Structures are given as structure tokens and as C-alpha cells.
């Protein structure tokens, strides 16, 4: 009897309590699959580069299998740069720098897998409230990467569109944005939408104002205002696929934070717990696999 009790107690102490603690820290419910996944992740941290490449070699098959159900438009909320930097004892600016580097790598992978449009929530209207040096650092980062990636954008024929309220942006950044947009405006098939000083409500409001002006000028009647008319006025009109199929928000927070509100009516929302600078090819593949398993019904029966 005593030995049975001690066995049970040992089991609890060794497995269950650390399991509960870890699952609470990682914001992941405690289940067998998650335990196995956790063990796999820890084990793979000790892989060297060769083994990692071997594992990723399976990407080819997945690519072929999933070609028919690839999302045409993927939206990403780049969350977690500051937390990533804090974890490593670095400053916030290093966190954002790492995030920016990760951005370009992921965009390249994404386009390579056949996505047409990628939208990135780089800077929200609410982010102006952050400390001044952080905001300055972010603006400088945008300028740096827009300038340095121009040749790559040209060679890969990626069209850049920057959406958002441009009135508060620094002059130099504005000039660079106009230059990049002008240089890439004729490209088709690959769209990179960067949302700087963007807010979903601002987007709907400006569409509404533009429609109101059209009504005032007699170009359209009030009765003609419908969902299609709104879609044509929203800032995402620059892309052939204005509504994202998949929205990824890293760092485990489960909210949209005023990104695409209208456009994400039927978007599949994916919330991985990994922080943005750690979000790489493997994590993106996981997101795609998850997306391909979704049953999208749009309100009807399948």
C-alpha cells in the first residue's frame, strides 16, 4: 500500500507538476501531443546544421501536396521583438533589428511557396505612444531595409505597397516609400504590403469618407454603397486579393489589435507562441499545414 502511494506520488512530482508549470509558461494546454512536441523541440535544439537540413528536406513533398490549398494572401502581425530582446538581455532596438532581418527572409520563403500577397503589420497607429527613441529606431529601420532591399525587390519583381496614414512619417522615409512604390508598381504576381501607421478603423473610416465624397459629388448614389464599394475604397485595393486567407500573430497573444478588421471577416487566425525573431521556415510550414487542415465553410454547409 505504502509502495503504491509512493509510486503515485513520485509520478506526480516528476511529471505532472513540471508539466503543468511548463505548459502554463508556454501558454499551451497540457496534453500528450504538446508534451511530445515540447520534447521534440528541446531535442532538435541539439541538432547540428546537417540534421536540421535533413529534416527540412521534407518541405518539397509538402509543397507538392499543398499547392492547391495555399493561401493567396497571408497577413502577419510581427509581435514579440521586445520580449525576444529582453530574454537575451539585449536592447529593444536589437530586438527590432532581428525582427526586420527575419522579415525579409520569411517574405522570400513565402513568395517561393506561391503566395500572391503578404501583408505585414509593421507599425500601428497606437505604436506612436511608445518611447521616442524606439519610434525613431523603428523609422530608421524601415528606411534602412527599404533602401537596402530595393535591388532584391527589382530582381524578384515584387510590388511594394505601403498602406497607412502617411501624415506623421518623417520626410526621408516618405521619399523612400514613394521611390520604392514607383519603381515596383508595374510588377504583378507578388505583392508585399507593409502597414506603417495603419489602423483597421482608420482604413474603414477613410473608405467611408471617400464614399461620402463621391456621394456628395454626385458620382454615386447612397443606395450604391454596398460591401463591394467599400472593398474598392479600402487601402488593400492595391492587391488582387485584398482579404487575407491566413493571419499569423506571433508571441501567443490572441487578438487582432486593430489590424485588418473588415478584411479578416473570413480569415483563419493562427496564434503560435513563438516570438517573431524566432519565426522561421519550420514555423511557417507548421502554419501552412494547420491552414490546409481547416474546413472553410463561409457560413454554408460544406
Amino acid at each position, binding site marked *: 500500500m505504502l509502495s503504491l502511494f509512493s509510486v503515485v506520488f513520485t509520478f506526480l512530482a516528476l511529471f505532472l507538476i513540471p508539466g503543468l508549470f511548463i505548459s502554463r509558461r508556454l501558454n499551451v494546454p497540457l496534453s500528450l501531443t504538446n508534451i511530445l512536441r515540447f520534447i521534440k523541440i528541446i531535442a532538435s535544439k541539439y541538432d547540428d546544421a546537417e540534421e536540421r537540413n535533413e529534416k527540412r528536406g521534407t518541405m518539397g513533398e509538402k509543397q507538392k501536396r499543398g499547392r492547391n490549398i495555399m493561401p493567396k494572401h497571408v497577413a502577419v502581425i510581427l509581435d514579440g521583438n521586445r520580449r525576444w530582446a529582453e530574454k537575451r538581455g539585449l536592447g529593444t532596438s536589437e530586438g527590432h533589428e532581428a525582427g526586420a532581418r527575419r522579415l525579409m527572409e520569411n517574405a522570400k520563403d513565402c513568395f517561393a511557396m506561391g503566395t500572391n500577397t503578404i501583408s505585414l503589420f509593421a507599425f500601428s497607429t497606437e505604436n506612436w505612444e511608445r518611447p521616442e527613441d524606439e519610434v525613431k529606431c523603428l523609422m530608421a529601420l524601415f528606411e534602412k531595409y527599404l533602401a537596402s532591399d530595393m535591388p532584391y525587390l527589382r530582381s524578384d519583381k515584387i510590388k511594394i505597397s505601403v498602406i497607412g496614414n502617411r501624415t506623421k512619417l518623417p520626410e526621408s522615409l516618405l521619399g523612400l516609400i514613394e521611390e520604392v512604390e514607383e519603381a515596383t508598381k508595374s510588377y504583378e504576381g507578388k505583392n508585399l504590403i507593409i502597414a506603417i501607421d495603419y489602423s*483597421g478603423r482608420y482604413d*474603414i473610416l477613410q473608405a467611408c469618407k471617400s464614399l461620402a465624397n463621391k456621394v456628395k459629388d454626385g458620382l454615386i448614389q447612397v443606395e450604391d454603397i454596398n*460591401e463591394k464599394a467599400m472593398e474598392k475604397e479600402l487601402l488593400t485595393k492595391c492587391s488582387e486579393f485584398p482579404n487575407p486567407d491566413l493571419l499569423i500573430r506571433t508571441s501567443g497573444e*490572441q*487578438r487582432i489589435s486593430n489590424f485588418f478588421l*473588415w478584411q479578416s*471577416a473570413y480569415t483563419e*487566425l493562427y496564434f503560435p507562441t513563438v516570438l517573431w525573431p524566432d519565426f522561421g521556415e519550420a514555423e511557417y510550414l507548421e502554419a501552412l499545414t494547420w491552414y490546409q487542415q481547416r474546413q472553410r465553410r463561409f457560413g454554408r454547409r460544406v
Partner: protein
Amino acid sequence: MAELPGQIRRMGGGISQLLEQIYGFSRRCLFRVISMGPTPCHIAFIMDGNRRYAKKRGLEDGSGHKAGFSALMSMLQYCYELGIKYVTIYAFSIDNFRRKPEEVESVMDLMLEKIKSLLEKESIVHQYGIRVYFIGNLALLNDQVRAAAEKVMKATAKNSRVVLLICIAYNSTDEIVQAVKKSCINKSDNIEASGNYKHEDRGSDIEGTDMENQEKKIQLVDIEENMQMSVAPNPDILIRSSGETRLSNFLLWQTGNTQLCSPAALWPEIGLRHLLWAILNFQRNHSYLEKRKKQL
């Protein structure tokens, strides 16, 4: 000897009543503990998974929705006991009209029956003093359902303790378009009323003082006050059952900073523990979100 089965039955009934009372009491104690932390003011539910539940249990098609309704009643009871003032539910979307006509009809019949039952004396409406709103494009409903809905809204208009918003024939994009239309009409009415005919000034901004400019241009508040959901604050938590993580055109404008929860349970299986988990997560993020709201 013949009384024994009757006695056992009565005893069994008594025991289950006692258990229910104990359960209710411990639940209320638990709620007291939870309310020590910040509690949400408004929770929204997307009631997904009724048909899958019926298939899983091998029941006939309509009974999934009926089971869903009883799950809804218990969730409402928990919410109001916890002190949450506003509850919104996604009952029927405009997209759902595209389902098979028999299914649409059976859902409409069920809704008519349940809406009528809200007016009865023993219903939850009277128990908690609920004010009921029906949000959506009610013109798309058939006459009976619309009349019943309007009757309920009128009958409960004086209640003010807690509010239940039932989104029926609703699409968030439709709500936004209606609000935009109303704002346009209101603005043009205002302009005409103030006697300023500036229609000839094409392309240029309206001349005049800054105040006049502000009045004539549409502001954020104009759209917001014309939204049907303006009777309630933005939801703090949105719970969608059956594990799908999408909004399906529900409260897109209002959920910019809402905590999204997707328990894997189908709607008829949803229980107290899912609600508690959502509220605990909300409490974890609350202080950060409060800071954000102040910035807005």
C-alpha cells in the same frame, strides 16, 4: 411494499435537488473568488458546432441546435451570475441563408419558438431582468420572426440590469455598410439644413471655417454612433466554440482589442470550465490592455 419504488424515486429526486443546490452554491463561491480580479464587462459568443455535435451523437439534424440552445441558457446563467453586464451571441449570419432551405427553415422555426418563450414568466429574461436587443438586418427575416423579435425588444425595453444582444441575420460588413450609409445621409441632411450648397465645388475641400469643415467631414464618432452595436461597449472576450479560429464576419469593427478564445469543445459541449479559462486569460492580459485603451 408497493410504496418502496415511489419512496426511492422521491429520495432520488431529493438527492439530485440537494446535489444541484450544493453545486450551485460552490459555483457561486467560485465566482466570488474570480471576481476578486478584473471581470469582463462584455463577452461575445460564436455558437459553432451544433451540426457536428448532432452527427457525432448520431442524432437527427435539428436536435444539434436544440442542444445548443440549452448550452446557451446555462452559459447565460453563468455569465449573469458572474456579474457580466453585456452578452452578445451570434445566432444567425446572413451567410447562413445560403444553406439548404430545409435547414434554414428549421432553424428559423426553432428561433421563433425560443424567442416567443423569452416572453414567458419563467424565462431567464424575467429571472435576471435582461434587456434584449436583436441586432442585424431584420428585414431579411420572415414576418413572424421579425414581429416576435420586435415584441421582445419592446417588452424588455425597461429592464436595465443586464443586456443580451442577439445577432440574427447579421454580418459585420453589412453593419458597417449600413452605418456608412446612415452617416452619409445624415451628413448630407445636415449640410442641406444649414443651407450650404457647396456641391459645385468639385475636387476642392469645402471652404469655410475649420469648425464648418469638421462638421461636414465624416468623423469616427459618426460611424460609431450609427452602428447597431453601439448600444454596448466593445467586447472584452470573444469565445468561439469548436476550435475554429476565425471571426466569420462577426463584430469585426468592435473586436480590435478583444481577447479571442477558441476552446476545442463543440457548442453543445461547452461548459463552465471553458468560460473560466477564458476569464482567467483575460485577467492575465487585463492591465496591459487597459493601458492600451487609455492610449486610444
